[in-house]
């Protein structure tokens, strides 16, 4: 049907035109209209329970938001109205110095520029309304209490919106009516709220049908045929399940739109999940090429405004089942084709690998890794992650459904609310607290109490200080989660197990999802390991030198240049040196245990996640000089990677150090990046190079038979050189004529040209090709 309506190639042309239309959008005001609508209609629902009120307010928003339908669109729907122009890293005004230690829920109102339609007074009214909500009040209390810890980022906490993976499969198969019926058949406020929220799908579809009807009056015959197809499909999925790929993609996008609107503004890092498995059952007779064309429109949907502001939305393909059978399908390759041809900044692509992943998949990935300026997928090791998840209590039948929320956090699709970015821990700053007795080496301010130590017992003391910090951090993190629970999410909860558990997924008393936890992003692992070893060496050389070391650190090594040279010459992580690699392993083990021993608001463990999404820069900025010889305010190591410049013996040695880490502990995830010089790959074409990448990088790292314990399970790469990136910056018209040059930072793609200068420099620095050279 779809290909009787659209001429060959037309879908791709339209998708590319649609993306250009999106990139021309400079203002994002929909989220503000949503908040304003809630403010203006709330009174109608006085007396309702919070869940039911929220469901009604969602419907009010869906009735009120302005809708549009481009002549290049083959689907209706947009997530644009849920996002603001906020995300720091792609904001030109982002600076490393700008971190405030405070997640101000009202700051978003600074992201909308007043104009004739949205006057300063109008914006201020909604800001004031928001400021009086219970959520903001609770959050402020939490931040106030933790202020001395967060102002220079000993730790940081935040309320986590987005960051889960809804399971829309049941809705795609059986339709929205089936869900409403199920909700209505059960008693309880949550179920009532769920049914109301689900009716929002019909509200939205009916409004789009009206719009289509209007457009049909004025469009040409060819467009009318397209709109007829859209109309027929919408009428079907208004109640029923999808009957083909076109309808499945359409229904998925509408559910996504409402899910995001429910959490507007800025519910970052929702994930599509295992997209090839979700959509393959609907592909029917469509060829790989035809399915790819349809999927291109799906991809355009995820790009919001001029810089693709809805960041970190993950699409996964590939992987295996519990028996080890490969799960790639025609849809896997269709999705990859769509990605390659469109090369958009969002959504991000991740590929799940296992030891029996077909060679074809690696070969086809070659074009992503070895085409300049083209997106590269993140890589996950199913064999290892399956073990990690199993060891952390995930049922076997759920394990293959793990997906990735945000950058690299593994969560079970539709069953896991992990509050992934709830808390952020800065290990080197804690070391600074111990060394200085709780005084900042940056500002001199007293930030906390810390017990005295000696050069022989410093490890024990460090862990005691850390214990105290983690106590404070988890208390604050739970405070932020409880504050957020004031904002109910009945619509999303339906797709997170709510109809089974009968509770909102944010409920702090009844667990509304099968799995629940809270995340902690652990920063500076390798700086701490390098520092501990340097302190050992220092103590051997200067057994009575404690005061000298502290003075050197407080003075950023000014006057202590010789000492700094000595500290820099001490063994560093990333060079396959046992004593420092073992230290990093020990720290990772202990910190993971300390976190897992802490419970969140529902009594579930915190999940260690050794990642640092650009916060290795912003947090490093608040850490004074460290005993490894790192200068004050310098960056921390990225994720579990060696500190930039400290691993100089090439990729093999770096991999060997990395492989000693206890990956079985990292059930919250971890981050690791390799900048790889393309010159090492000699294959004749992308396919051969893809297979070389498999043999030289992936097999030794992920599927190494000599690795004891759980293998590494995550990696992202940028295959380029600093010289290439500097050329792109100097002459974007020549090297990126489309205005888009995709790079990876953390789990997400970015248009390199959209990034703030600080982040562009970080990407260039962290390519760190000495650490990854292959000869």
């Amino acid at each position: 049907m779809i290909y009787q309506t659209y001429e060959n190639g037309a879908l791709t042309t339209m998708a590319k035109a649609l993306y250009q239309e999106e990139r021309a959008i400079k203002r994002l005001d929909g989220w503000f209209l949503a908040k304003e609508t809630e403010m203006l209609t709330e009174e109608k629902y006085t007396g309702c329970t919070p869940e039911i009120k929220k469901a009604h307010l969602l419907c009010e928003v869906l009735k009120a938001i302005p809708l549009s339908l481009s002549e290049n669109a083959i689907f209706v729907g947009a997530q644009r109205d849920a996002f603001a122009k906020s995300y720091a890293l792609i904001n030109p005004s982002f600076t490393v110095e700008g971190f405030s230690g405070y997640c101000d829920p009202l700051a978003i109102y600074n992201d909308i520029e007043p104009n004739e339609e949205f006057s300063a007074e109008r914006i201020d009214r909604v800001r004031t309304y928001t400021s009086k909500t219970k959520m903001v009040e609770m959050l402020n209390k939490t931040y106030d209490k933790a202020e001395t810890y967060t102002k220079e980022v000993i730790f940081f906490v935040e309320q986590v919106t987005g960051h889960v993976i809804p399971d829309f499969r049941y809705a795609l198969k059986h339709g929205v009516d089936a869900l409403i019926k199920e909700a209505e058949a059960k008693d309880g406020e949550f179920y009532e709220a769920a049914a109301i929220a689900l009716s929002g799908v019909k509200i939205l579809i009916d409004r789009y049908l009206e719009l289509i009807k209007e457009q049909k009056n004025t469009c040409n015959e060819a467009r009318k045929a397209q709109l007829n197809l859209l109309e027929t499909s919408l009428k079907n999925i208004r109640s029923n399940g999808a009957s083909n790929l076109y309808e499945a993609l359409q229904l998925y996008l509408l559910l996504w739109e409402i899910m995001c609107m429910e959490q507007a503004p800025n519910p970052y890092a929702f994930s599509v999940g295992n997209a090839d498995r979700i959509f393959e059952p609907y592909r029917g007779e469509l060829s790989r090429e035809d399915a790819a064309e349809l999927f291109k429109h799906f991809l355009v949907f995820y790009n919001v405004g001029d810089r693709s502001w809805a960041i970190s939305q993950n699409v996964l393909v590939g992987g295996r089942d519990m028996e080890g059978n490969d799960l790639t399908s025609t849809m896997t390759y269709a999705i990859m084709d769509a990605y390659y041809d469109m090369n958009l900044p969002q959504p991000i692509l991740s590929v799940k690998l296992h030891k029996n992943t077909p060679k074809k998949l690696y070969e086809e990935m070659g074009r992503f890794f070895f085409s300049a300026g083209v997106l590269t997928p993140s890589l996950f090791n199913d064999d290892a992650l399956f073990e990690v998840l199993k060891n952390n209590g995930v049922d076997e039948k759920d394990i293959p459904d793990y997906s990735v929320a945000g950058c690299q956090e593994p969560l079970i699709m539709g069953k896991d609310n992990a509050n992934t970015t709830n808390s952020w821990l800065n290990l080197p700053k804690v070391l600074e607290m111990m060394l200085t007795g709780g005084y900042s080496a940056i500002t001199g301010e007293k930030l906390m109490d810390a017990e005295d130590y000696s050069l022989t017992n410093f490890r024990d003391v460090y862990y005691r200080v850390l214990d105290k910090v983690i106590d404070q951090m988890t208390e604050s993190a739970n405070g932020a989660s409880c504050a957020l629970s004031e904002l109910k999410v009945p619509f999303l909860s339906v797709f997170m197990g709510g109809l089974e558990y009968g509770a909102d997924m944010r409920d702090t008393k009844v667990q509304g999802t099968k799995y629940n936890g809270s995340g902690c992003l652990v920063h500076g692992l390798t700086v701490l390991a390098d520092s501990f070893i340097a302190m050992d060496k220092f103590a051997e050389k200067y057994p009575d030198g404690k005061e000298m070391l502290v003075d050197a650190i407080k003075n950023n090594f000014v006057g202590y240049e010789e000492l700094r040279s000595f500290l820099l010459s001490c063994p560093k992580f990333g060079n396959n040196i046992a004593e420092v690699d073992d230290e990093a392993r020990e720290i990772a083990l202990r910190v993971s245990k300390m976190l897992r021993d802490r419970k969140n608001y529902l009594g579930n463990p915190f999940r260690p996640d050794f990642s640092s999404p650009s916060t290795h820069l912003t947090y490093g900025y608040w850490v004074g000089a460290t005993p490894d010889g790192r200068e004050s305010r310098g960056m921390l190591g990225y994720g579990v990677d060696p500190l930039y410049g400290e691993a100089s013996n090439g990729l093999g040695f770096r991999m060997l150090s990395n492989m000693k880490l206890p990956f079985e502990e990292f059930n919250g995830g971890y981050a690791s990046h390799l900048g790889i010089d393309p010159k090492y790959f000699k294959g004749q074409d992308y396919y051969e190079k893809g297979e070389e990448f498999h043999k030289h990088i992936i097999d030794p790292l992920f599927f190494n038979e000599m690795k004891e314990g759980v293998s590494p399970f995550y990696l992202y790469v940028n295959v380029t050189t600093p010289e290439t990136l500097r050329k792109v910056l100097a002459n974007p018209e020549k090297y990126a004529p489309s205005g888009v040059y995709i790079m990876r930072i953390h789990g997400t793609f970015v248009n390199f040209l959209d990034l703030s200068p600080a982040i562009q420099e970080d990407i260039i620095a962290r390519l760190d090709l000495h650490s990854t050279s292959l000869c």
Partner: protein
Amino acid sequence: MQIFQKGFNFSQDGPGNRLVYHIAGCNMRCLWCSNPEGMQESNTHTTYSKDTLVAEAISCKPLFFDGGGVTFTGGEATLHAEELMEVLQALKEAGIHTAIETNGTSPKLMEILAYVDYLMMDFKHYDDAILKKFTGLEGSIIKENYAAITQSGRQCHIRIPLINGFNADHAQGFAEFLSKFPTDNIVFEFLKYHEFGKEKWQSAYQITDGFVNEEQLAAFQQAFDKHGLIYIET
């Protein structure tokens, strides 16, 4: 053992993924050398004892995939033959595959080979006068070693750096000389001139037009084909 560089490389320094140690000091002065910093023993980075090196190699075993192991190169790996043999023997005892890359000038090469699983030897020129002019050494021992190796029947991978102005127009002479000996277990490889090391020489670099063209390479391939010599590309 004086090591000025180490790192992993796949398949270009022997089979599989290999840990490559560059031993400082060389008895040749090849004008195109891409590691000139390794010519002098005084330019050393790290001193390794036998035990340290073997322990490191053992810790690297997870990366010796596809039949990999340890390769010694230079500088010239065989300058300190006794020391090298001790380390090679210890590596073999630890179950690690060994390889060396050599310019073939060591009188003790055949002795060393008792501990070498995979041998890569340069054969830069058959004409002693030209060889001496460009490398500082004439080639009688190299030829003796080549003869001994071919007659021993052991595997050997002979590498010929092709450099315009030095040997790139002498395809016929190479093929004729090399085919005088039994080559059933020998593979050859042509290494086309590159300038990866040029920057290290700074202004002292003397090769001005070293790149070889397709015709020159084809002439080598044809001459070797004609003489039944097998060549590979790694």
